[in-house]
C-alpha cells in the first residue's frame, strides 16, 4: 500500500524530505521490512536511522519512516506527527478504493439486472420466461447451465435448466439437502463428487410467495471456480427471478379470474333463460314473477305453466346453499319439476312434490343439500288455489280487507326424507286478494346495523302496496329490500311471485 501512496502522493513526500534535509538530516527514507521503498538522497549502505516512526493502519504495520543525522526531541516529535499524516493518507486511499470497488460491483449488478429485464420482460408464459431468464443468467455467470426449481404451494413442480441439461431431480434434491445444511444462505461447491457431469455448482434460494421451495442454481463455471462476486450476482439473479415468477403467476391468476368471470356471465345468461320467459295471459289474473341471484348464479327458481283448461300451475323453490353448487342442483330440480307441472291430466301440487322428491332424493342426499318448494295450482274460474308447501317461506296471503297472513309449510323440504310427508291445502282468492310467494332472500336481509328486514316488515310492505299491479308490487318490494340493504353485500337470492285475481 505504501508503494502506491509513494507514487500517488509523491509531491507530499518530496516536500517532507526537503524539509528534513534543510533541517540538517543526512537522509529521509520510507522502508518496509528492511526494504527501502524510497529515500532522499539515495540510501547508502552504511546509513543508519537515528529516528524512526512506524506506519500502522487498522492494526496492520505497513512500514516506517526513517531519518538520519538528527537526534533531538523536536525532530522525533516532528517525525511522529508526519507518521500520523502518512497513516491518514493511507487510510483515505484505502477507503477510496473500497468505495470504488462497491461502485464497480453495483454497476455490474445494475448491468446484470438491465440485461435480465431486457431479456424477460416480454414473456408472460412461465416456461418461456424461465427459459429466457436461465439462458441470460448462464451467459452473465459464464456457466454451462443454469437451472430453476420451484415447488409451488399447489404441489406443482417447475424444474427447468438451460442451455445444457446436466441435472436430474435426484441431483437437485441432494443439493437442496446440502443447501439447507450449509446454513450460509447459499450453496457453493467448488468440487462435486458423485454427480457425473457436475464439476462445480452455486445454488441460492429464490423468494417466491407461491412456492414452498424455490432455488436457482448455476452449474459448471466455464473458467475456474465460483467467486464471491459470482455469489453476489447469483443473489441478484435469484431476487429478479423471484419477482418475475410472482409476476407471471399473478398475471396467469388474473387471466384465470377473467376467464372464470366470463364463464359466470355466460352461466348467468343461461340460467336467466331457464326461467319461464313469457308471462301467461290469464283472464281474471294479474301475475308476475322475478328473481335476482346474489352472485351470477343462484339456487332460487320459479316456473309456471298454463294448462289448456285455464288453470295455472306455478312453483317457487330455493335450493340450500349458495352459488354454483346450488345453481347446478336448481337447474336439475327445475327441469324435473317442469316436466311434472306440464303433465296432462295435471298432477296436483302434492303429487308434483312427491314425484320430484322421490326422483331427486338420492341426488340431494349425495351432495348434502335440500330444496324448499311451494307448488300452487290456481283456477281463475272460481279463485280456487290448491297448494303444497314443502318447507318454503315466505308465503304471504293478503286478503283485500284483512291483514296479511303467512302460509306456513306443512312438510319438510325436498331431499330430506325419501318419502315426503307433503300435504295439500285449498284456499279461495277473490278480486283484490294477493298471494306472494317469495324466497328467504326477501326477509333475511340485513342493513348496515345488522338489523334484519324480517317477515313482519315484508308483510307490512306487501299490504301497503296491495293496490299496485303484480308487476309494480314485485318491483317495489325488491326495491325496498334493495334500499334496506343499501351498500351491503347481497347475502342471498331474491325471488318473488305475485298472484292477484282481478275479477
Amino acid at each position, binding site marked *: 500500500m505504501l508503494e502506491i501512496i509513494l507514487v500517488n502522493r509523491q509531491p507530499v513526500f518530496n516536500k517532507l524530505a526537503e524539509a528534513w534535509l534543510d533541517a540538517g538530516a543526512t537522509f529521509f527514507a520510507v522502508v518496509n521490512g528492511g526494504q527501502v521503498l524510497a529515500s532522499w538522497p539515495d540510501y547508502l549502505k552504511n546509513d543508519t536511522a537515528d529516528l524512526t516512526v512506524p506506519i500502522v493502519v487498522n492494526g496492520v504495520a505497513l512500514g516506517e519512516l526513517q531519518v538520519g543525522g538528527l537526534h533531538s526531541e523536536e525532530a522525533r516529535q516532528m517525525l511522529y506527527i508526519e507518521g500520523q499524516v502518512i497513516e491518514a493518507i493511507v487510510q483515505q486511499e484505502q477507503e477510496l478504493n473500497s468505495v470504488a470497488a462497491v461502485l464497480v460491483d453495483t454497476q455490474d449488478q445494475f448491468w446484470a439486472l438491465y440485461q435480465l429485464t431486457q431479456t424477460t420482460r416480454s414473456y408472460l408464459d412461465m416456461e418461456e420466461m424461465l427459459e429466457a431468464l436461465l439462458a441470460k443468467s448462464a451467459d452473465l455467470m459464464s456457466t454451462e447451465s443454469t437451472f430453476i426449481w420451484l415447488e409451488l404451494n399447489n404441489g406443482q413442480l417447475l424444474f427447468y435448466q438451460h442451455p445444457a441439461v446436466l441435472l436430474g431431480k435426484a441431483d437437485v434434491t441432494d443439493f437442496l439437502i446440502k443447501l439447507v445444511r450449509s446454513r450460509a444462505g447459499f450453496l457453493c461447491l467448488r468440487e462435486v463428487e458423485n454427480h457425473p457431469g457436475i464439476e462445480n455448482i452455486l445454488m441460492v434460494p429464490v423468494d417466491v410467495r407461491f412456492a414452498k421451495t424455490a432455488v436457482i442454481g448455476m452449474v459448471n463455471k466455464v473458467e475456474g471456480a465460483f467467486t464471491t462476486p459470482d455469489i453476489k450476482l447469483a443473489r441478484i439473479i435469484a431476487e429478479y427471478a423471484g419477482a418475475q415468477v410472482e409476476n407471471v403467476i399473478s398475471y396467469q391468476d388474473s387471466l384465470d379470474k377473467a376467464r372464470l368471470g366470463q364463464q359466470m356471465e355466460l352461466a348467468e345468461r343461461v340460467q336467466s333463460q331457464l326461467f319461464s320467459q313469457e308471462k301467461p295471459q290469464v283472464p281474471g289474473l294479474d301475475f308476475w314473477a322475478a328473481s335476482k341471484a346474489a352472485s351470477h348464479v343462484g339456487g332460487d327458481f320459479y316456473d309456471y305453466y298454463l294448462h289448456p283448461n285455464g288453470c295455472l300451475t306455478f312453483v317457487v323453490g330455493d335450493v340450500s346453499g349458495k352459488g354454483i353448487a346450488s345453481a347446478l342442483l336448481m337447474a336439475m330440480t327445475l327441469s324435473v319439476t317442469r316436466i311434472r307441472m306440464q303433465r296432462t291430466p295435471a298432477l296436483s301440487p302434492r303429487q308434483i312434490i312427491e314425484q320430484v322428491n322421490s326422483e331427486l332424493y338420492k341426488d340431494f342426499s349425495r351432495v348434502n343439500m335440500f330444496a*324448499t318448494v311451494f307448488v300452487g295450482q290456481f283456477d281463475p274460474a272460481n279463485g280456487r288455489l290448491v297448494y303444497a308447501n314443502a318447507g318454503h317461506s315466505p308465503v304471504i296471503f293478503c286478503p283485500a280487507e284483512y291483514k296479511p297472513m303467512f302460509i306456513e309449510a306443512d312438510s*319438510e323440504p325436498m331431499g330430506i326424507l325419501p318419502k315426503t310427508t307433503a300435504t295439500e291445502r285449498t284456499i279461495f282468492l277473490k278480486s283484490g286478494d294477493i298471494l306472494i310467494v317469495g324466497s328467504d332472500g326477501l326477509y333475511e336481509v340485513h342493513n348496515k346495523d345488522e338489523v334484519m328486514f324480517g317477515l313482519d316488515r315484508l308483510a307490512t310492505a306487501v299490504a301497503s302496496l296491495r293496490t299496485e299491479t303484480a308487476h309494480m308490487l314485485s318491483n317495489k318490494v325488491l326495491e325496498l329490500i334493495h334500499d334496506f340493504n343499501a351498500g351491503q353485500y347481497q347475502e342471498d337470492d331474491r325471488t318473488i311471485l305475485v298472484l292477484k285475481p282481478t275479477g
Partner: protein
Amino acid sequence: MQITERQINDIQILELAGRFDTTTANSVLRHIDSATAKPPAKVVVNLEKVSFVDSTGLSTLVQGTKQSRMQDGDLYICGLQQPVRIIFELTRLDKFFEIFSAEEDAIAAFSL
C-alpha cells in the same frame, strides 16, 4: 364461528357459537364427520350461542343426523335461540330433528 368439542360418556357434544352459515358450515361438518365416524354415533349439537343459521347450516345438520343414524346413533339439537327456532319452524325441519331445550335433556334422551 367457534366450535367446542366435549365428551360425556359416549356422547359427543359440539357447542357452536356465532353464525352457522355457508362460510362456517364446512368446519362444523368436519367435526360432525369425526363424531359420526364409528358406531354408536351419539351427537348433541348445542346451538345456544348461535345467532343465525342459514340453509347450508341446516343442510349440515341434516347430513350429520343421517350419518349418525346410519352409525346406530342420532344427532340431537338443543338450545335454539328464538330467531334460530323460527328458521327451523319455517322450513318444518323442526319435525325432522330431535330438538331439546337444554343440553342435559338431549344427553338424557340418549339413555332412554
